[in-house]
């Protein structure tokens, strides 16, 4: 009972819930935008890496490797606290979104590349032989097949981005975690933190389950 009184005090939860929900809104907005931009950027990077002119290809490889090596938190802190020294000042939301997108697009690029490379050569050749342009070969034939293959890892990557949004609290963005720590300070009780954890689970657990289901379905082959 004591434990429940400490960590799950109902009045505190009810009182701070609006704050948490506001934070959740921010977290979802940041996650959604970073995921979307990361998926678009990742596709661009993958295509550049595979088919771009040589110098650009090397630049792309360097970019992908660097941003897969950098810890998200380190890059986020640099974007928010270091860039102002060269005259670039971003809001906490913009800084977090920029940092998350830059890193998630590097991961997404490698996933797309693996997917495109897994499409058999004969598919490219058949598409070319009927006279499709390079762009059409990609859009009509290769990408639909590649994306089917990579939906599970791509979804995993989205989950990671969603989780990494919590790092934005470090740059004072009022996301779910930040709101929860503030509510905890105000209420002098850790219940809001538990509430926040539960909200993260509400959003992410279904996604994790979904990845499991997708992997199983895709392992069974196409319908």
């Amino acid at each position, binding site marked *: 009972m004591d434990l429940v009184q400490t960590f799950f005090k109902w009045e505190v939860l009810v009182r701070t819930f609006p704050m948490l929900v506001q934070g959740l809104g921010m977290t979802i907005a940041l996650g959604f935008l970073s995921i979307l931009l990361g998926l678009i950027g990742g596709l661009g990077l993958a295509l550049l890496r595979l088919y771009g002119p040589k110098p650009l290809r090397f630049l792309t490889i360097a970019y992908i490797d660097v941003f897969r090596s950098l810890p998200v938190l380190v890059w986020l802190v640099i974007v928010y606290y270091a860039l102002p020294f060269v005259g670039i000042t971003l809001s906490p939301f913009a800084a977090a979104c920029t940092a998350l997108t830059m890193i998630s697009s590097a991961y997404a690029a490698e996933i797309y590349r693996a997917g495109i490379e897994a499409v058999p050569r004969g598919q490219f*050749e058949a598409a070319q032989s009927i*006279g499709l342009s390079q762009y059409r070969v990609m859009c009509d034939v290769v990408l639909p*097949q590649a994306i089917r293959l990579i939906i599970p890892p791509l979804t995993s990557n989205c989950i990671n981005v969603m989780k990494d949004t919590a790092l934005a609290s470090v740059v004072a963005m009022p996301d779910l975690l930040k709101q929860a720590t503030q509510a905890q300070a105000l209420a002098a009780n850790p219940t809001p933190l538990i509430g926040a954890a539960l909200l993260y689970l509400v959003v992410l657990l279904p996604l994790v389950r979904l990845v499991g289901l997708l992997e199983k379905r895709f392992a069974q082959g196409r319908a």
Partner: protein
Amino acid sequence: MIEPTQPVSQAPSAAFDRQAAAARRTLISLKGVNKHYGDFHALKNIDLEVAEGEVVAILGPSGSGKSTLIRCINHLEAYSAGDIYVDGTRVQPGPELIEVRKGVGMVFQSFNLFPNMTVLENVTLGPIRVRGRSPGAAQARAKELLEKVGIAEQMYKYPSALSGGQQQRVGIARALANEPRVLLFDEPTSALDPEMVGEVLDVIKTLAGTGVTMLLVTHEMGFARHVADRVIFMEAGQIVEEGAPEQIFSAPQEDRTRAFFQSVLAH
């Protein structure tokens, strides 16, 4: 530009005048074509002219460059030296390549149907995207073609639901959908179970009588003999011998050709 023709909807094979075809103008021409894979010399100074409407069978041992030769014609492989022209257009990277490919259909050994599309979508993709047909017109035409290859009932299925023979007949319909003047076949029956070879060869044989120009790489000697106007024998990246089927099969001039037929017959 290659004008569209109606390759399938013409006279049956018996009525087609082979002599007249041979006298027609050159549609495909290769001059001094060489192809290297790294250090490996896969095609050595190939000269070849194919007349409009001609059916040419290409024979030769494994690794002799048969696939490489026909894949250079629609530039699936880049050649390293020489010239290839299809209907007067040089085959090379650039905007004209699309024009060349519109007029050159290809049928692959492993079918290479698009697994993410239905049979009908496989056949209409080229006409809609490349020839700019309306979906309605493309579908009407595709249905005709699928009927010709005997597969119309399957048109809403995905390729994975079809047998090998059926898939290859779809592959032929897809190659015909752009109304090409030239069809390239790369061992179209080699991946098929024996009982399905006949149905595909029958379709190809019907096409051979319609005036469409065909280059056919095959190991089906009997088929080559009866369907081709001309037979080419390749070895080690070179054309060793060519001529009318009767001459090549009954009286080959070159030792290497004779040796090849003996090894094939021995199996």
